[in-house]
C-alpha cells in the first residue's frame, strides 16, 4: 500500500508543473476562465437568462395565450348594477375565455388560479381613483356562474367598482398575466398553476383578518399582452 501511494506521488509530481513556474497572471486567467465556465454551465442547466419579454400590444378580439387561459378580450363598458345589495357604478371588461387544462377552473375566488386575478387595468392617476376589482362572473343567457370547464368557451365579465371621482377614458388598456405550472414537491406532487414570475417582492404586511404581521413575498407576474379596448357608455 505504501509503495503504491509513493508511486502515485512520483507520477503526479512528474506530470504536474511546480506552482512557482505558473505565471501569476496565467493563474488569474485560469481562475477567471473556470468561473465563467461554471456560470455559463449553471445558466445553461437552468434554461439560461430567460427574458421576461415585452407584452404583445393587441386590440379587441385577438386570442391571447395565458397558458392557463386562452383569452379573447372583446370590449368594455360602464354600467350601474345592483351589487351586494346596492347600486354600484362599474367598469366591466368582457372576454371569451377557454380553459385549456383538464381541470375545472374559476373566474373569481380566493385561489390564485382564477381568471380575474390575471387581468390588470392600466390606469392614469389623472383619471382619478383607480377602479377596484370586485368580481369576475361568467354569463350564459341570464345565468351568472363562476366555473370555467375544460375546453368550453365561456363569456366572462370582469367587474371594477368606480369611485364617484373616477373618470373613465374612451379607451382602457388591460394587461393579461402569464401562468405556469409549478410542481410542489414530493409531499404534494399534484402541482398547481400560478403567475409566471417576472420577479418577487417581499413586504412587511398585516393580515386584515388575522391581524398577524410578517414578511410576505408576492409574485410580480410576466405580462403576455396589453389589450386596448374602446369603452362603451
Amino acid at each position, binding site marked *: 500500500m505504501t509503495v503504491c501511494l509513493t508511486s502515485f506521488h512520483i507520477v503526479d509530481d512528474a506530470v504536474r508543473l511546480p506552482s512557482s513556474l505558473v505565471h501569476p497572471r496565467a493563474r488569474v486567467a485560469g481562475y477567471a476562465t473556470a468561473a465563467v465556465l461554471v456560470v455559463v454551465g449553471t445558466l445553461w442547466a437552468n434554461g439560461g437568462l430567460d427574458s421576461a419579454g415585452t407584452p404583445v400590444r393587441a386590440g379587441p378580439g385577438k386570442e391571447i395565450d395565458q397558458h392557463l387561459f386562452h383569452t379573447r378580450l372583446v370590449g368594455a363598458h360602464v354600467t350601474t348594477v345592483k351589487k351586494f345589495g346596492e347600486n354600484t357604478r362599474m367598469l366591466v371588461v368582457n372576454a371569451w375565455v377557454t380553459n385549456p387544462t383538464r381541470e*375545472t377552473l374559476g373566474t373569481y375566488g380566493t385561489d390564485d388560479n382564477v381568471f380575474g386575478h390575471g387581468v390588470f387595468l392600466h390606469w392614469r392617476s389623472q383619471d382619478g381613483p383607480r377602479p377596484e376589482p370586485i368580481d369576475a362572473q361568467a354569463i*350564459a*343567457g341570464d*345565468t351568472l356562474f*363562476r*366555473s370555467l370547464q*375544460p*375546453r368550453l368557451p365561456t363569456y366572462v365579465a370582469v367587474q371594477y367598482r368606480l369611485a364617484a371621482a373616477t373618470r373613465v377614458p374612451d379607451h382602457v388598456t388591460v394587461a393579461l398575466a402569464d401562468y405556469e405550472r409549478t410542481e410542489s414537491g*414530493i409531499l404534494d406532487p399534484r402541482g*398547481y398553476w400560478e403567475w409566471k414570475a417576472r420577479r418577487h417582492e417581499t413586504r412587511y404586511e398585516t393580515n386584515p383578518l388575522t391581524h398577524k404581521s410578517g414578511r410576505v413575498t408576492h409574485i410580480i407576474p410576466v405580462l403576455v399582452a396589453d389589450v386596448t379596448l374602446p369603452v362603451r357608455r
Partner: protein
Amino acid sequence: MRRIASIVLAVALACAAVALQAAHWSYTRAYGPFVKSGRIGRTVTEPLFTIRVDQVDSARTISIPGTEYTKAQEIPANGVFVVVLATIEARRSLVYAGQARLHTRYGDYFPTDKLGGGGGLSKPLVTPLSYVRFQPGMPRRGAYVFDVPREAVAGARLYVSDHDAEDAPFGFYRDDPRRFADEVHVDLGLDPAEAARLTRPPPIGYSVPEPS
C-alpha cells in the same frame, strides 16, 4: 486509478440523486382514492354508501319553474348538459356524496354551478345530489348535471366519492377531498353511437328532478 474511480463514483451518486428526485409516484398512485368500478344500471357498494346510475339524459337548456320569490328561468348550456340520474343510499351513517365529476377525454368536469348555490351560501335552483345528505335506509334519487362540450360525451364516466371539500384534513399545502377517499367510477355506457344519439339533437327545456 483511485482518483478516476472516485470521480466515477461521485458522478454516479450525483446522477442517482437527480434521478431519485425526478422519479416519484404519480399523485393518484401515492394518495389517490380507493376506487371501485361499476356500470350504469348496477349498484356499486362502498363502505359508506351505495350508488346506482339509472339513466343519462342530455339537454340544450334547463327549465327552472318560477316560485313565489323567483321568476321562471331557461338556463342554456355552453356545450351540452349531461344529466346523470342516480340513486344513492347511506350505509352506516349520514354521508354526502359531495365530490362528483364527469371524467372525459378532455378532462374532469365538475357539476355545473349554473344552478346556483355556489359555495353553499345560497340554495340552488335545483338541488343536485352533491348537496344532499344521505341517511341509512333512505335511498334518494336525483341528478348530477354537467355542462360539457359535445365531443367530450363519448366515453364519459361518472366519478363519485364520499368526501367533500371540508372532509380532507390531509396534506401540507392544501386539503384534497380525493385523498384516500372511497370513489366509485361508473361506466355510463356512452359509446360513440350512444353519445351521438344523446347529443343529436338534445332537447330544450329539460326539467331536472329534485331529489325524491
